[in-house]
């Protein structure tokens, strides 16, 4: 087997890895901001915290252009069908961050109208605790999501073929251990 000397400006990788690398560094968030978490989401996008450092500064208000839905705030039963439609309008590959206590669990709003956690009805990749979470926490969530995208993603979505290929959620992992 012949050994080929590579020049310094050439790197070898897998196509899946390369595509995942591109995807994770160009997340376009859909700001589904329904409550005070939305203010922190805006702060995350503004200059002090600057989500652009992670390639996710392009907030788009059209779901067709987004691949990361950030649900920031409580979701009521009248909003949930809208949220589901927005989620379905987004193109694959797509991810979802449930930001704050209300989006993740309903928070203090244990009432007839507030959905007790959006993960009951749409898939969620990352949960951010807090009421509302600091921008640092949201940035940590985006970093974690980038790691997850790098680990799981394939060009043609093979990870959806077999559920076993998907790394279990961190919370579930801890439960199992």
């Amino acid at each position, binding site marked *: 087997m012949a050994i080929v000397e590579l020049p310094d400006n050439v790197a070898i990788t897998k196509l899946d890895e390369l595509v995942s690398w591109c995807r994770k560094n160009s997340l376009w968030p859909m700001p589904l901001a329904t409550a005070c978490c939305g203010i922190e989401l805006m702060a995350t996008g503004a200059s002090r915290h600057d989500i652009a450092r992670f390639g996710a500064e392009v907030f788009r208000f059209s779901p067709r252009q987004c691949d990361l839905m950030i649900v920031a705030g409580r979701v*009521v*039963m*009248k909003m*949930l*069908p809208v949220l*589901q439609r927005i*989620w*379905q309008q*987004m193109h*694959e590959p*797509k991810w979802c961050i449930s930001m704050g206590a209300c989006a993740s669990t309903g928070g203090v709003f*244990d*009432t*007839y*109208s*507030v*959905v*007790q956690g959006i993960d*009951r*009805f*749409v*898939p969620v990749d990352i949960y951010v605790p807090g009421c509302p979470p600091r921008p640092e926490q949201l940035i940590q969530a985006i970093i974690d999501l980038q790691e997850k995208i790098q680990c799981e993603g394939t060009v043609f979505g093979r990870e*959806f073929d077999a559920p076993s290929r998907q790394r279990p959620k961190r919370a579930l992992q801890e439960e199992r251990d």
Partner: protein
Amino acid sequence: MLPPDLTAVCPSIAVSEFRGQMRVVVPVESLWNVLQSLKEKHGFDLLVDVTCVDYLNYRGARDRFGLVYLLANTATNHRITVRCFVNDTDPSVPSVVALWEGANWLEREVWDMFGVRFADHPDLRRILLPEEFTGHPLRKDYPLQGHGERHNFPVITRGEG
């Protein structure tokens, strides 16, 4: 100060004053006449709010629902509270949309939340809750966590997305 004399319109009117504010309690039969008289004869041209109180299990209460009409006279800056009690099994009061256009959505909200019907309302639909919602959640006998309406949705999985 005391409210204007309305005994001609409604003999059984109950008049009182609380911290300088005029209050009257009228039976439902003469509610429309009292409000019309207040608007057209006594200059209470602004309907500030229409709301409702559910007195279920309230200490000393004899009636179930208390409709509250807050009126203001924009010329003299006087305000008056008109209250009217109705009871269960289809509580109903006359709509005042014909007097104040702005009562339309206020009455729809009371209908939505308390289930008090407004007779002759032009468009008595739910205003805040979804059309298919059953029940009136601000009634005291409505459970805080509802009847499961908040979880009555299809589940979208990762594969279906």
